[in-house]
């Protein structure tokens, strides 16, 4: 009888939570990388929808730092930050946004559909909440195989009112699936404030209604997020069933590049900008004497170069050949 074989990334445990400087560097990389994306979108080098993560860097950075490299990540369409935090190559992410053959999805996916199976990055998805069942299935498979990998599912506050949110949380709870649900509550789903469309605004309480262990965390504080996810993922890994984390955060930019932001005030945005997760950590590290202005400048220079190089790589990369249009519609027995 054919028995089960592992397919994915090496299993080795992660080498412990990275230090705060590493967290800062990742957040700065995400920030700079996306500023470059915005620049290239304005220049017409990137097309389609572009959803920037700027402002929310602490969530992806802290959460993924607390995971094992082989834990699955399933995200939505605002996933550049999750991809960078998981270690996908900036060059290949940028190339994907450019629609180049060298992109992580060969130029077929685009900004909303980044994939890197080698890194257990199982994709960005563009149907709100439509990816939540997939995270349940990945977790189910690991439970079935007897492994201790977990599936981490990132989604937004707007996804909470979809039927699939309900079905996924119930199934994960009933079957004790090792899923780490992380909702990035940035207060808006496109232009709709959560209070206008959700019966209960504290999302983590909704998860508790399924008997799921759920917590809320300051999503502008990367260390707090990292520690919460470390604690919660441990439970899921131990077989205690799914866990749920609500990260309170804010997106500094519009929903997409098209958003005129009629629905929120400049003041509100400014107030949140004072909580910028990158500035917060820079101040803390400086205050603690861990880093100084020079080190910050060095880090900045480093990420500037990565973003610049990524864009150059994308510019110089070839487009997928037209003849490849019909490739990968079906997997044939031949294709290993």
């Amino acid at each position, binding site marked *: 009888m054919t028995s089960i074989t592992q397919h994915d990334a090496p299993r080795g445990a992660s080498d412990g939570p990275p230090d705060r400087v590493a967290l800062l560097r990742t957040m700065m990389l995400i920030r700079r990388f996306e500023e470059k994306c915005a620049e290239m979108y304005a220049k017409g080098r990137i*097309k*389609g*929808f572009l959803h920037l993560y700027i402002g929310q860097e602490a969530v992806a950075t802290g959460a993924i730092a607390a995971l094992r490299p082989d834990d699955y990540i399933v995200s939505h369409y605002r996933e550049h930050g999750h991809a960078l935090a998981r270690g996908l190559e900036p060059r290949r992410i940028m190339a994907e946004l450019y*629609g*180049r053959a060298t992109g992580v*999805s060969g*130029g*077929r*996916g*685009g900004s*909303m*559909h980044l994939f890197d199976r080698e890194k257990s990055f199982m994709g960005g*998805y*563009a*149907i*709100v*909440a*439509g990816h939540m069942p997939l995270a349940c299935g990945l977790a189910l498979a690991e439970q079935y195989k007897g492994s201790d990998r977990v599936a981490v599912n990132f989604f937004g506050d*707007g*996804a909470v*009112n*979809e*039927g699939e949110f309900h079905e996924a949380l119930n199934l994960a709870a009933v079957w004790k699936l090792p899923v780490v649900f992380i909702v990035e509550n940035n207060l808006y*789903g*496109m*232009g*709709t*404030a959560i209070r*206008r*469309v*959700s019966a209960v605004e504290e999302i983590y309480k909704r998860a508790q209604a399924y008997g799921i262990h759920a917590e809320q965390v300051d999503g502008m504080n990367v260390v707090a997020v990292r520690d919460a996810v470390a604690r919660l993922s441990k439970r899921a890994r131990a077989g205690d069933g799914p866990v749920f984390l609500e990260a309170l955060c804010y997106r500094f930019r519009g929903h997409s590049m098209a*958003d*005129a932001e*009629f*629905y929120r005030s400049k003041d509100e945005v400014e107030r949140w900008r004072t909580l910028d997760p990158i500035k917060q950590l820079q101040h803390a590290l400086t205050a603690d004497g861990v880093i100084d202005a020079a080190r910050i400048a060095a880090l900045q220079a480093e990420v500037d170069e990565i973003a610049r190089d990524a864009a150059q790589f994308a510019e110089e990369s070839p*487009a*997928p050949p*037209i003849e*490849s*249009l*019909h490739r990968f*519609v079906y997997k044939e027995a031949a294709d290993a």
Partner: protein
Amino acid sequence: MPEITYRQALRQALRYQLQHDERVFLMGEDIGAYGGSYAVTKGFLEEFGERRVKDTPISESVVVGAGIGAAMAGLKPMVELMTINFSLLAIDQIVNNASKLYYMSNGQINVPIVIRMAGGAGSQLGAQHSQSLESWYAHVPGLKVVVPATPYDAKGLLMTAFDDQNPVIFIEHTALYTSKGDVPEEPYRLPFGKAEIFREGTDVTLIGYSGSLHQAARAAEQLALEGISCEVLNLRTLRPLDTEAILASVRKTNRAIVVEDDWEFGGFGGEIAAIIQEWAFDDLDAPVLRCSGADVPMPYNGALEQAALPQEADIIRMVRGMV
């Protein structure tokens, strides 16, 4: 007649309905505070208030289902689903409830709801945001399926949709919102089931709708320069379908090509070809051909996406090979 955009034409019809019929109200994701994902309802919340213009949670199924329920109670809801891709989350409500209630209830309960959504591809939105599933809705008895191609169609057909007593699936094309055309300021209605002869011709009939009408029309212009005369039909509605107009044109030209963004296999073009060969068999000098989208999920890359969509050049090649 003032020249306005497809978006403005839709806005005129919606505003007219809101102004003249209290039974009409609008529901949908981000149609209010955000102004509508394609800005069709921009300013309506301010003008008509929350009772008439309702921002909803991201819950396609209950939003459409609540629209159906409100229609059962005698109101005339217009539900906006942003894009046809998301309508898959509400399709059980549309197919199992809206399309069947009048029949199952033996004529006691009808469902006068208008469900608007944007379909089509071409702006590199990727596989999950670039589908053209109108053929699915056109397959279902009990539904009406409207596919406006011009600003004039958009206003006149949307006005008619609100007069209809049945569920109307109103499919706009993402690439057409900024297209312009002459549109009367006063209200007018275009009948369902009546196609428009968009361009007269004698050699080949090109059948298009929504976005694909324009590729067909552009191809016809090119071909005219070569002395090939194409008749271009604008279907306007897929259900009911103006079979008479299609057959009348083919009886004249003896050749037909259907142009559609959607996947060819199992798509609506097949229905049209089947109808033509059944009813105009002896009039055909050549098989009915289809110029359709490629049989692939839509790729993001711009060149691949264009290669996956029917192009003017493809139509021209087909016509040349036919005459």
